[in-house]
């Protein structure tokens, strides 16, 4: 048994030396800028044939080996696997995680870059010419937003604040209105950037959900109205007041299914409940009944 292993190891050694010979030859031939190509080829061929022979001998020796029946007694090397100190291995998972994060960041930024370079469309505040009109973002908007949300105290409405991606200036407000509907408000400073309205049983947890329309016509309609309201209440100078009024207006939807239209006294028109709320009186109206 040991002899066989020995001869196998020897055969491997032979193979290694013959292979390295091949590399040496090619290397030296390159260096000597090949005076005689045919002789070089012959030499190479010869060496390769040696490699082949050695390889075959390894194969045959390995085939001659038989599978060990019991565990090997390898002396202290057998104790190697006992050396599994989790403290020493812990770095690996962290490394993989940070690598994944890094890869993700890379991918996202690359995608964002192509998108942005294709669409040279400028949002209202980033043109250098009308810097004057750009609403100033307060020095410490995070506290202001938190303060504002704390002070809003509406029945049957819960508001959660998220600040994804570590941006201090913008915040996501997740509004749960009774058991009726959900809304997400994306703030920049105190100014509303985007509103998404969804049903109570629809997902709004992933970032992508903010750009997916509700599956229900009612909430799609309410989202349209919310966008109008967002513009209606918009006021760069009294941003806090504007946002506060908007949220109060949004809270009036808690009775969307249970209050009939103030004008026609009916629930349904075109199979939709009164989806419009007056900006001042907050009265429920059908879209078609408001004039």
């Amino acid at each position, binding site marked *: 048994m040991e002899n066989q292993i020995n001869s196998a190891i020897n055969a491997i050694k032979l193979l290694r030396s013959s292979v390295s010979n091949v590399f040496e030859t090619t290397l030296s031939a390159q260096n000597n800028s090949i005076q005689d190509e045919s002789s070089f080829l012959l030499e190479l061929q010869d060496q390769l044939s040696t490699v082949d022979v050695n390889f075959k001998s390894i194969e045959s020796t390995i085939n001659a080996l038989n599978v060990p029946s019991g*565990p090997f007694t390898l002396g202290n090397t057998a104790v190697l*696997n*006992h050396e*599994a100190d*989790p403290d020493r*291995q812990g770095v690996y*998972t962290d490394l*993989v995680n940070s690598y994944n994060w890094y890869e993700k960041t890379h991918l996202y930024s690359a995608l964002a870059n192509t998108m942005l370079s294709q669409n040279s469309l400028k949002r209202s505040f980033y043109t250098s010419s009308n810097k004057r009109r750009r609403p100033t973002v307060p020095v410490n908007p995070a506290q202001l937003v938190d303060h504002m949300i704390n002070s809003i105290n509406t029945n049957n409405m819960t508001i959660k604040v998220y600040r994804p991606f570590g941006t201090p200036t913008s915040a996501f407000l997740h509004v749960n209105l009774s058991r009726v509907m959900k809304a997400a408000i994306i703030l920049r400073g105190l100014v509303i950037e985007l509103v998404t309205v969804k049903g109570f049983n629809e997902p709004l947890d992933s970032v992508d959900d903010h750009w997916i329309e509700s599956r229900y016509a009612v909430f799609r309609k309410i989202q349209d109205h919310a966008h109008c309201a967002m513009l209606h209440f918009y006021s760069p100078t009294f941003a806090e007041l504007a946002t506060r009024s908007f949220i109060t207006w949004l809270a009036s939807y808690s009775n969307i299914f249970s209050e009939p239209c103030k004008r026609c006294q009916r629930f349904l028109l075109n199979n939709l409940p009164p989806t419009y709320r007056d900006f001042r009186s907050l009265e429920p109206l059908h879209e078609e009944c408001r004039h």
Partner: protein
Amino acid sequence: MDQPAAAMDSLLQALQVNIIPNQEYLLQGSVLDTAVQRVLHRLKGLCDNVESAPEQFSDYEACFSLGSPVTDQMQAQQQPPLFLRVIRKTSEPVDAGTPFQLRYIGNPELGDAKRPTLVRASFDIACSPTICDFLTEMGCQLKFEYTIRGYLFRKGRMKISVSKIFKINQEPISQSYLVELSVLAPSGHDSVAEDMRIFAEKLKPLVLLEKIDYKRLAQMGN
């Protein structure tokens, strides 16, 4: 969409073409508490979920039996009692939406020496929390209960769990972790057993995974 077929019919059809995973291939073993870190470490290297730490779990499991009171009267039928297990996640965060699990485990078949693993029928059914009341009212009796805590690994379709069994008063049942290697597959997928054998080889000599003869074990206990 055509006329929806009756659910039962489509299920029976699925059963006929063997796409419902209802056979569990199983190998069992154990590892002493002192050596469990080494096993975990080795599994971490062998299994798929490398990038994250091994998944931890903590479950409560109760085993119900159905049929024994009936067979008292119909002894002639010799119907063996049916064992049903209810499994509930107890690790944080406990999410109200996480369903309970109802598991039916059939009698393990040892097979001949050539078959590398134990095979038993097994269905895993997700269900609502009312399951315990349901089973009790159905006439099932609680036979035993325990908590099981440990780590879960997977390698392809193989599932490897390294777990500690506690009595209901949180007292461990032994100084060892139970190690189970299992695959849930439709019947007729015997090739997975061979994969399992090869995987079990890789855990030697830390853990000896083998097919355990339940009948012999029961007799040994008595």
